[in-house]
C-alpha cells in the first residue's frame, strides 16, 4: 500500500499560494487578462474606440476567423503571410539548431581564446534586433558589402530587399522551369506555384539574419547541456573503441535530446512570431513577400482599425505554434523510454498472472 503523504503539505499549500500571489497577480494583470481580452476582441465587433468590455460591443461568433478564409484580399494576405512565415520557419529552425550545436561543440573544446570565441558568437544575440536589421539593410543593399563580395567571385548578387522572386522559383527559372501556368490550384488565395516558389530574396536575407542572431543564444543552451554531461559516459564509449564522430553522434547527441526539445520549441515560437525585423526593415515589401502573420495582425489592428481580424490572426498564429510544438514533441519523444515502459508492463503482467502475487516493483513502491 502507498504511504500517505505527510499532513503538513496541505497546510503549506495555502501559505505557498500566499507567497506566490504577487507573481500570480502580476502574471494575471499583465498576461492572462490581456490575453483573455484579446480573445474576446477576436470574437467581437470592437472597433477600437473605448473599452472592448463596454455594452456597445457585441459578440459576433467566429466572424473574424471566417473573414480570414472567405476569399478576397483578407484571405490572400493571410495566405501570403503564412506562406512567407512557413518558409522562414522551415529554413531558420533547422539551420539555427545545427549551427548552435556546432558552435557549442567548438567552444566546448579547450582552445586558446575560448572566452573570446564564446563572447563573439553570443554577441549578436544581445544586440538589439532593430540595430541588426538596419545593419542588414546596408549589407544586403544592391551595392552593399554582400553583393560586392559576391561580385569578387563572379556572381551578380540580387537586389536583395527589392526582389520579390522566390529563391526556388528563381533557381528553377535558371533551369528554364516555370510552373506558374501549371501549378494553379490555390490554397488560402495563394496558388500552388506561389507556395513552392520559396522565400523571396528579401526574406532570405532575414532568414540569414535570424540564424546569425539566434544561433548564439541557443549555443549557450547547448553549451550548458554539454558541460553537464558526465564525462564517464564518453570515456566508456572511448574504451569501447568508438571514434570521435561516433561518440558525438551516438553518445553525445542522444543525451542532448531534452536540450533539442527546448531549442527547437523556442526556435519555433520565435520564428512564427517574427515581427521587429519586418516592422523596422521592410513592412512586408517587396511584393508582400516579407509579410508575416504577426506583422499582418499589427497592420490589421493598428493601421486598419480592424481589431477583430487582427486578434483572430494572432490566435490562429497561437494555434499554429501549439500544433508545431506538439508535432516536434511527438517526433522527439523518448522512444527508448516508452519501449522500455511497455516491455516492463508486459513482463509485470506475465509475472502477475504466473504467481498471483504483487510484483517486486509494486512492493518496493
Amino acid at each position, binding site marked *: 500500500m502507498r504511504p500517505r503523504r505527510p499532513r503538513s503539505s496541505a497546510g503549506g499549500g495555502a501559505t505557498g499560494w500566499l507567497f506566490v500571489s504577487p507573481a500570480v497577480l502580476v502574471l494575471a494583470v499583465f498576461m492572462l487578462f490581456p490575453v483573455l481580452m484579446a480573445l474576446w476582441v477576436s470574437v467581437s465587433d470592437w472597433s*477600437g*474606440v473605448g473599452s472592448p468590455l463596454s455594452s456597445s460591443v457585441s459578440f459576433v461568433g467566429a466572424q473574424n476567423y471566417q473573414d480570414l478564409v472567405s476569399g478576397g484580399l483578407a484571405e490572400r*494576405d493571410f495566405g501570403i503571410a503564412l506562406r512567407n512565415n512557413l518558409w522562414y520557419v522551415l529554413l531558420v529552425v533547422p539551420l539555427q539548431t545545427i549551427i548552435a550545436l556546432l558552435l557549442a561543440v567548438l567552444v566546448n573544446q579547450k582552445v586558446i581564446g575560448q572566452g573570446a570565441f564564446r563572447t563573439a558568437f553570443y554577441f549578436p544575440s544581445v544586440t538589439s534586433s532593430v540595430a541588426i536589421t538596419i545593419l542588414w539593410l546596408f549589407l544586403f*543593399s544592391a551595392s552593399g558589402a554582400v553583393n560586392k563580395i559576391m561580385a569578387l567571385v563572379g556572381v551578380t548578387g540580387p537586389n536583395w530587399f527589392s526582389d520579390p522572386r522566390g529563391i526556388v522559383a528563381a533557381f528553377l527559372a535558371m533551369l528554364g522551369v516555370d510552373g506558374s501556368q501549371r501549378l494553379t490550384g490555390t490554397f488560402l488565395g495563394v496558388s500552388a506555384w506561389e507556395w513552392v516558389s520559396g522565400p523571396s530574396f528579401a526574406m532570405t536575407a532575414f532568414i540569414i539574419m535570424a540564424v546569425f542572431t539566434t544561433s548564439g543564444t541557443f549555443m549557450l543552451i547547448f553549451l550548458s547541456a554539454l558541460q553537464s554531461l558526465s564525462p564517464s559516459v564518453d570515456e566508456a564509449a572511448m574504451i569501447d573503441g568508438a571514434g570521435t564522430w561516433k561518440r558525438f553522434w551516438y553518445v553525445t547527441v542522444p543525451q542532448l535530446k531534452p536540450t533539442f526539445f527546448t531549442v527547437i520549441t523556442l526556435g519555433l515560437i520565435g520564428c512564427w512570431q517574427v515581427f521587429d525585423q519586418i516592422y523596422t526593415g521592410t513592412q512586408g515589401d517587396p511584393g508582400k513577400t516579407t509579410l508575416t502573420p504577426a506583422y499582418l495582425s499589427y497592420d490589421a489592428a493598428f493601421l486598419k*482599425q480592424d481589431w477583430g481580424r487582427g486578434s483572430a490572426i494572432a490566435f490562429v498564429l497561437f494555434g499554429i505554434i501549439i500544433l508545431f510544438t506538439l508535432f516536434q514533441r511527438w517526433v522527439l519523444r523518448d522512444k527508448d523510454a516508452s519501449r522500455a515502459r511497455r516491455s516492463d508492463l508486459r513482463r509485470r503482467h506475465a509475472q502477475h498472472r504466473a504467481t498471483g502475487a504483487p510484483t517486486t516493483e509494486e512492493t518496493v513502491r
Partner: protein
Amino acid sequence: MKITRRTFGAATLSTAVAAALAACGDGFDSGSASASSGTAGLTLLIGSSGDAETMAVKDAAATFTAESGVTVDVQLATDLNQELAQGFAAGSPADVFYLAPDFLASYAGNGSLYAYGDQLSNKDDFYPSLVNNLTYEGVLYGAPKDFSTLALFINTDLWSAAGLTEADYPTSWEGLETVSSTLTSGRVVGLTCSGEYARVGAFMAQAGGGLTNDTGTEVTASSPGSVTGLAEVKKLLISGSLKFAADLGTGWGGEAFGTGLAAMTIEGNWLTGALSSDYPDISYTVVELPAGPAGKGTMQFTNAYGIAEASSHKEDAVRLVEFLTSTKQQLAASKAFGVMPSIQSASEQWKSENPTMVAFQAGAGYAINVPTADGASDVVADLSSQLATLATSDPQSVLDTVQANLEAVIK
C-alpha cells in the same frame, strides 16, 4: 488555524485580483473624462517631418495661445498612427491631430472623429478636390492642412550634359520616352519613381483612368484609361529608361534623384526640402508632368487636422484648426517647411513667393486622389506590391484583380 490561513490567503488573492481588474476597467471607462477635464488646454499630436516643422507648429501654437488664451500642448508622435489608435482605444486621444486621408474612413467609421467641417468659416476656401478627399459619407471630417501634387524633377546638369535644352522638357508621353532614353547612359537611368500606385497612378490619370471616379463612388481600376496608363509604365520599364527606386537600391525616387542615379523623378514638393538639406549640390528644375492621351494628369496628397469626438474642448479645437489653416498661418508654414497651402486665397501669394514651384500648384487643377474608402488602402497596397513585377506581368490582369478587390470595398 489551517483553515483560517487558507481562507485568508484566498481572500487576499481574490480581493487583490478584483481590485486590479477594477482598476483596469476604471482606466478604460473614465479615460475620456479625465483626459481632457483636468486642464483647460488643448493637445495637438503631430507627426513631424523634422525640426523645421516642429518649430513652426510650436510657434503657431504659441501665437494662438497669445490671441485666444487657450494653451496648446504640442506633442510629437514617433508613430502617429499607433499613438492615435491607442489614444482612441483608451478613450483619451489628443484633441487635435494630424490625420492622413488613408485613415479617415476607419476612424470616421468607428466614431472616433468629430465632424466639424461645416463649422469652419474658411470651408469654401479649400480646394474642392481636397475637401472631397476628406469627406466620408457626405460629411467633411477634417480641414486639409496643406497638400502637394506630383511633378517632374529634372537634374539640369545631366539634362544639358545629354545635349538637351529647355525646349525639350517633355509635354507628352512620346517626349518623355525620348528624353528618358537620351538621359539613360551608364549608371544613370533617365527616369525613376517609387514602384507604388501613389506615383504610377499619375500615368493612369494622364490616360483618363484612375482607381475610382472623382467622387470615389465608382471603381474604374480596369477601365481602358487605367490600363493604357499602366501599359505606358510597363513600356518605359521594358525600354530600361524607367527604373523603380528600389531597383536602383534606393528607398524612394528622391534618394535616387539626389544621389544622381536618375536624371528625372516623379515626386511631390517635399522633395525640394530633402534636396536642399541632404543633396544641396544637385541643381534641378521642376516642371509639370507630361500629358497623356487624355491630357494632363497627376496625383495629389493631403493631410488634415482631425478632432477627436472624445475631446471635451471641441469648440476650442475648431478655433485652433481655423487658426492653423488661415491664409496667414499657412503661408508662414509654407515658408518654414515648404508645404503648399490648402486654400485658394493663398495661391497667388504662394506662387509669387515660390516661382520655382508653380508646377505643383498647376497640378491642383487636374490631380486625382488615392481612394480613401474603408479597406481601400489594402487594395492600393496590394496593387503597389504587384508593380514590382510589372515588367513581366499583364497590366490588364493586374488591374482586373484590383477592380474586383476594390469593388468589394466600394459598394
